[in-house]
């Protein structure tokens, strides 16, 4: 067993760290306030490889292991949760299904541009106004074959990156009789007629990441835009989400680490009752607990990533890692605010933003309750 990151992994961490310090962190507060997407940073991410982390090298991607993407997302998460969320959704949700299930022609057609982000990002549309956790029972968006084209009708909700995407992988019902083999993934370029992308949602956190509702009104795409196999949409989606959870957990670790770093600095400087806060045992314990929980979550995340890289099954492990990391992040950010007192509650300091950002993490890509269902099912089966 070896807990040491390789020299390449350490170098990659430093690269993403430097990039985040230069391009992402300085604008995080401003973009949170104005709910704007950091388009300039994304332009620079392509050449660095941050937009091709789930794309093989032969299609222009970075072709990296998931440990490297976990490291990158952790660093981006430390700088700006919203920017990191758009990166993880692009890579893990949008590009990954094309890399994993796409035909040679589909991969050649879409992946090289997505790796550079020149025409826009990728998105994955599962959730609908009426359903999120229960995709099998709830997805109403229909796709019907008419000659050589799919005709898609329905609506999706809460889709990360839709407003800045060039294509959206859409989970559609292709068999009206229902059941776990009734769903399929279809690629819908955003410029297709009949696809309406609504204005970005107004959110509590992750405000630098656009989230949009979509309406599909007789949207027509070629038959061969079907991704993977007909009727395998649910299975493909669950496989994608297993990987995506590692990413969400990594961002959570970044948020928690940034929050506690801020709190540690503050606790050393602020004095009460004649001594720095850091000398009060109650504060020390909060910090010690936070560091311990962050490290535990990080190990679970890295292990899930490692299992994935080894080609082992990692569904339970990624669910456990996401559950722990996201619940931990919320708790750590909460305590980081507590350590800051009133200043923690002020938007002058970044901690309250991290708290708001962290709050999403127990909901997106499967709620904590759904993670527990996944874990329990594996344990009890």
């Amino acid at each position, binding site marked *: 067993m070896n807990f040491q990151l390789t*020299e*390449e992994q350490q*170098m*990659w961490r430093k*690269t993403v760290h*430097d*990039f985040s310090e230069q391009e992402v962190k300085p604008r995080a507060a401003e973009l949170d306030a104005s709910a704007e997407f950091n388009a300039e940073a994304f332009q620079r991410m392509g*050449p*660095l*490889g*941050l937009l091709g*982390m789930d794309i093989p*090298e032969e299609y222009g991607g*970075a*072709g*990296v292991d998931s440990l*490297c993407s976990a490291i*990158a997302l952790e660093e981006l998460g430390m700088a700006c949760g919203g920017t990191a969320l758009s990166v993880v959704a692009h890579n893990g949700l949008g590009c990954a299904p094309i890399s994993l299930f796409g035909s040679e022609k589909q991969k050649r057609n879409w992946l090289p541009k997505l790796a550079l982000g020149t025409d826009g990002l990728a998105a994955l549309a599962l959730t609908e106004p009426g359903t999120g956790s229960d995709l099998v029972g709830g997805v109403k968006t229909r796709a019907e074959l008419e000659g050589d084209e799919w005709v898609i009708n329905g609506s999706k909700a809460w889709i990360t990156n839709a407003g800045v995407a060039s294509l959206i992988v859409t989970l559609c019902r292709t068999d009206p009789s229902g059941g776990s083999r009734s769903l399929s993934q279809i690629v819908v370029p955003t410029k297709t007629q009949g696809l309406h992308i609504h204005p970005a949602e107004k959110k509590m956190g992750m405000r630098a990441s656009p989230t949009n509702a979509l309406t599909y009104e007789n949207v027509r795409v070629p038959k061969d835009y079907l991704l993977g196999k007909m009727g395998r949409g649910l299975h493909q989606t669950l496989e994608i989400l297993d990987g995506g959870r590692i990413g969400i957990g990594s961002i959570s670790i970044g948020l928690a680490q940034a929050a506690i770093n801020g709190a540690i600095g503050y606790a050393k400087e602020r004095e009460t009752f004649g001594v720095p806060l850091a000398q009060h045992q109650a504060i020390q314990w909060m910090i010690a607990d936070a560091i311990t929980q962050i490290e535990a979550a990080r190990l679970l995340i890295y292990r899930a990533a490692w299992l994935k890289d080894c080609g082992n099954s990692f569904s339970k492990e990624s669910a456990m890692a996401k559950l722990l990391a996201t619940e931990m992040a919320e708790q750590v950010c909460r305590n980081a605010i507590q350590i800051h007192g009133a200043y923690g509650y002020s938007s002058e300091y970044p901690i309250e933003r991290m708290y708001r950002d962290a709050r999403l993490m127990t909901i997106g890509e499967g709620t904590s309750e759904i993670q527990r269902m996944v874990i329990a099912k594996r344990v009890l089966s």
Partner: protein
Amino acid sequence: MNIIVCMKQVIDLEQIRIKPNTREPVIEGLPLLFGDFEKCALEEAIRIKEVHGGKVTALAVGSPKLRDTIKEALAMGADEAIILIDPIFQDSDAMGSARVLARTIEKVGEYDLILLGDSSADEYSGEIPPRIAELLNLPQVGFVREIEVVADNDQMSEPKKIRVARDMEDSLEVIEVDLPAVIGVTSELNTPRLAPLSAILKASRKPMHEWRSDDIGVTAEEVGARASVVEMLSNLAPIQDRKGIIYQDVEEGVIEVIKALQQEGVLTQ
């Protein structure tokens, strides 16, 4: 154009702490990395190569940790690396280090330009570029913040000259120099690129040669502690003498603080 970039690994200066009681810097166990100057030199070499072709070789002398550190140079775009690791190089003074570098450059043989940081971020002595130039009998320019390759009229032949701008603080001196030459650069030269992920992962597949003293024909008489004629007597942080002025009266305090800021040139009169 073949360019050799000499790169020194330095401790991460951001992580140095000073022992408050003895004023000694705590440097044990700190990570080693390339400083900004050497990265600027490498960046410039890569840019020149991108336009004029040729090869970039990164050259470094140091501890076994170099086997890892050098990968950053390869990831950024050096085609090849030569690292020199030998216990006898340890505790060399500037003359010793320059000798090791010069011998290595001689052994490499084919070069048109030698780029390096004008000084190193840790010791900042600025001696290495002129010493290497002296040993190799080459022209040398320091404090360089701009480099332009002077194209020959005959497009097909290799460039024979470069034009450099030398930072004299109040003025820029522009100099044309024949190649091969030794150029010491400042960090104003450029902004070094961040290595893309795919290049980082491929860095270890690029050629890396590890040489020892025998490979370049230097002996313990010429380099290392024994040959060192300069001895560092102490290395302490300066005494920080805070004046600790406290104004009891707010009105007076404001006036005095404004005066002090004006004197420092922070506020204009």
